[in-house]
């Protein structure tokens, strides 16, 4: 007793002398957020995850961008034309786009020209750079001497495709396709990652790796609002790298951070009611902004008939897979494990938020335990008899989902063994087709259902493509080609829906849920919008 008081007292005295000094910000507005996963590079060629993409999006621009409703909007390219053969794209650049100033430039205001675009795109293709974004130009006719990027004049660039690819502009809106200046890239080499020079609304100021990253407003940004006021409104952006999620949550409550993204077990029950709404006590302090995030979380099942581990395995029977697909309650899963902050995946693999998503479609995957038992009986495994225990590979982040499935499928008589692996091992195992059943998610690279359906195209078998289940169906493949040739968007969506229903009928994947963008934003932050690919766009954001 005595000791404890003595301790507390000593601690008080020790700490009395410490005072804090606050940063004097004056009237300048700084937008601050935390990135617990860290940022590995500011080079757009390595913008392989959301963390990097968000930062890169502040510093760089592409030819085009996605607006809030996921439509292609002009950026550095003011206008463009698509040739009659749907294979040539001609871009006309804005004359008033300048790179941030840098010592490497000979002039103080260096304008962007078509050569820069060609340089940036060719750089991405360079095998020595080993950019994870190289694939975005797979559709480009790289057999040409200019790799398919033809510079017509200073302000005009023509891109030649191998064959029509309707989603191509979507690919150009990714951060990989951001425009970088040749002089700076050549001067810094690999260290361009920490000396990023682009044309974006903010420019690099300070980066103390693992501590904080600061961008300042780009005074020469090309964009103005409707009233002719120069964008961006914010004076600076600060990103901190605190790993502890509860510290991030506290920072948001204290007003240190202006927004926080996503749900984490460290705070989700404190912030949200079980119906997914924000608790009333946070009213007037924080608001929850949510919208569909084009991402599907699913369980994949290897269906390759030639795979040795599948020999005579009950999972080869589509009836068994369908039984699994209807044999668990997605709504409970979403309510109890995700506080209703995601959407139960009851309508196929194409997620909510894409035009091809069909709310009314019934792909026969609604929870129905009786139906599941009937299907098993029909398949010759009544009450799961004769089905060996099935290993389900996952990373540690999703064990809760897998245990939920283990319980629900257990009620059908199917035993699941959850196999928790480190991320690298899990990916390795899945892509080498060594995992019979695995948890994975797919996030839209570009907002087109084709990006999701490519997971079932037989030419994309892993390890050479993302068809991890080795699903193969001739009818599906021919629809796939038909869709890529179709120039009418509505017709394409219809084809995509048919393809989705084909996949669901054979259930090589079991969609769990469609993700949701959940942004907790401080009330003083205005005009903070996001889109279905969860892009961070601060051009028009204001702070009171």
């Amino acid at each position, binding site marked *: 007793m*005595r*000791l404890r*008081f003595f301790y507390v*007292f000593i*601690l*008080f005295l*020790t*700490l*009395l002398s*410490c*005072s*804090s000094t606050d*940063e004097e*910000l004056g009237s*300048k507005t700084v937008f601050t957020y935390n990135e617990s996963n*860290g940022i*590995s*590079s500011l080079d757009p060629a390595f913008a*392989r*995850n959301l963390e990097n993409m968000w930062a890169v999006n502040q510093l760089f621009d592409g030819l085009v961008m996605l607006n809030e409703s996921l439509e292609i909007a002009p950026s550095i390219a003011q206008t463009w034309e698509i040739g009659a053969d749907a294979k040539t794209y001609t871009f006309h650049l804005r004359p008033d786009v300048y790179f941030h100033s840098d010592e490497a430039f000979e002039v103080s205001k260096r304008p962007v020209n078509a050569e820069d675009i060609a340089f940036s795109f060719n750089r991405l293709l360079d*095998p*020595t*750079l*080993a950019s*994870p974004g*190289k*694939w975005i130009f797979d559709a480009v006719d790289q057999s040409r001497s200019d790799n398919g990027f033809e510079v017509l004049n200073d302000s005009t660039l023509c891109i030649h495709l191998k064959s029509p690819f309707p989603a191509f502009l979507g690919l150009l809106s990714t951060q990989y396709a951001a425009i970088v200046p040749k002089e700076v890239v050549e001067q810094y080499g*690999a*260290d361009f*990652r*920490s000396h990023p020079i682009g044309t974006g609304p903010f420019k690099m*100021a*300070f980066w*103390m*790796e*693992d*501590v*904080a*990253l*600061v961008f300042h407003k780009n005074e020469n940004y090309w964009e103005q609002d409707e009233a002719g006021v120069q964008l961006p409104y914010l004076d*600076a952006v*600060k990103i901190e790298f*605190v*790993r*502890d999620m509860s*510290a991030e949550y*506290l920072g948001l409550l204290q007003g240190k951070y202006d927004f926080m993204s996503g749900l984490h077990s460290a705070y989700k029950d404190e912030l949200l009611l079980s119906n997914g709404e924000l608790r009333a006590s946070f009213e007037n302090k924080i608001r929850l902004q949510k919208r569909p995030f084009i991402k599907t979380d699913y369980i994949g099942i290897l269906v390759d008939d030639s795979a040795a581990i599948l020999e005579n395995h009950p999972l080869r029977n589509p009836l068994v897979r369908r039984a699994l697909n209807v044999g668990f309650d997605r709504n409970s899963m979403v309510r109890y494990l995700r506080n209703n902050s995601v959407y139960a995946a009851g309508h196929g693999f194409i997620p909510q938020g894409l035009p091809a998503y069909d709310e009314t479609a019934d792909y026969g995957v609604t929870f129905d335990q009786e139906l599941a038992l009937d299907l098993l009986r029909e398949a010759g495994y009544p009450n799961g008899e004769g089905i060996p225990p099935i290993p389900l590979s996952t990373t540690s982040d999703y064990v809760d989902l897998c245990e939920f499935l283990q319980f629900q499928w257990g009620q059908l008589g199917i035993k699941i063994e959850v196999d928790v692996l*480190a*991320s*690298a*091992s899990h*990916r390795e195992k899945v*892509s080498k087709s060594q995992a019979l059943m695995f948890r994975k998610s*797919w*996030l839209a*690279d570009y907002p087109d259902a084709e990006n999701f359906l490519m997971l079932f195209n037989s030419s994309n078998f892993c*390890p*050479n*493509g*993302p068809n991890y289940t080795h699903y193969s169906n001739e009818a599906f493949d021919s629809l796939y080609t038909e869709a890529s040739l179709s120039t009418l968007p509505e017709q394409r969506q219809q084809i995509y829906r048919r393809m989705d229903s084909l996949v669901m009928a054979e259930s090589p994947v079991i969609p769990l849920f469609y993700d949701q963008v959940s942004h907790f934003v401080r009330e003083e932050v205005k005009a903070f919008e996001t889109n279905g690919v969860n892009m961070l766009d601060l051009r028009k954001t204001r702070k009171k």
Partner: protein
Amino acid sequence: MISFLLRRSIYGITVLFGVVTLVFFLFGLVPDPARELAGQTESEEVIQAIRVKYNLDLSLGHRYLLFINDVSPLSLYANNTESRRYRSKEEVGGFEVFSGDDNKLVLKAPYLGRSYLTDRSVSAILKDAFPGTLVLALVAMLFAMIIGILLGLWSALNEGTWIDRMILLTASVGMSGPSFFMAILIAWIGGFLLYDSVSISLWIIVLPLLAILVQRMVLKRKIPGLFTGSIVLGTVMWIGGSKVGIPAFGMILPGTGLPMNGSLYTVDVWKGEQLALKNLILPALTLGIRPLAVVAQLMRNSVLEVKRQDFVRTARAKGLSEVRIMSKHILRNALNPVLTAASGWLASMLAGAVFVEFVFGWKGMGLEVFRSLEKNDLPVVMGAVMVIAVLFVIINTLVDLVYGWIDPRVRLN
């Protein structure tokens, strides 16, 4: 002396070589991170390009030889820029000793390569992380030494009294608390509970002080339960007093204002890098607690032991003053085992106090090793392991030298 240092260097290099080889080949067992670096699409072409970029497509033995070649001060590189043995000159530095038709011999500082994960140069990463660990370890050690030696001395001089018992008890608590637990506890208390200012009643301070004073000055004897009782009474008057009209004499103690997370430097939005010493307090306190407890106990036992030695009695018989006996005879001899223990601690602290750095998000070697292990980032792990191994060897050598200086009986041989 020279032969001692020479022996130590050979020993050091052997240790370094062993550690490096062991870690390198252990890493051969885990999958390489190329797939993780390839993004969601995992195109096999990109994975292959990443493997070539970092030599991951070569056999483990081949990579090991290339690694040793890079690390060794004298290395062989091909003149041909396409060759895999070549690194760009700016990256490696150094100067050519000998240049043949195909190959050249380069004398240079060890080259540690680039991180797989961030493509940042490993020497830059380590240069960035090391000061944090160094400052944290030194401050924690300084804190532990000063407070620990004083406490130990105080305890020994009051042998058998309640002061002695209390210090001993505190020391055993400090020693037995697991460091990750202590780190979380101290972060929670210092950075959360006491973050904002608290109002406490004067009663809770005045009454216990009064009780001590009365015991010491007036009664000159100890009354069991008086101190505890005064605290209880103080609490009752604080909480219950206001209801019956006794003023609480509220006193506002300022909060610590100490962050639960933070590194040696922070970044100011307009001014850039700023030293943030207040971030140092909680982690240094946490890291220092265990060595403090050890030092205090060691110091106490050591002083007690030396105090009973014949030469102290002789000194006293010679008529030396107590102060002189204490400072000249007892302290110097008693410090010997304490210093040895402390330097051992310092070495392991420099190796990165992984738990403390992790809990407080303190940027340092420990956190860097943790992160790179988590991501299979071999070059960073190898770089950190080498730095830590070299530090261990250097510190142990220094300790031996200091030890010999303090205690002439253990001179070098």
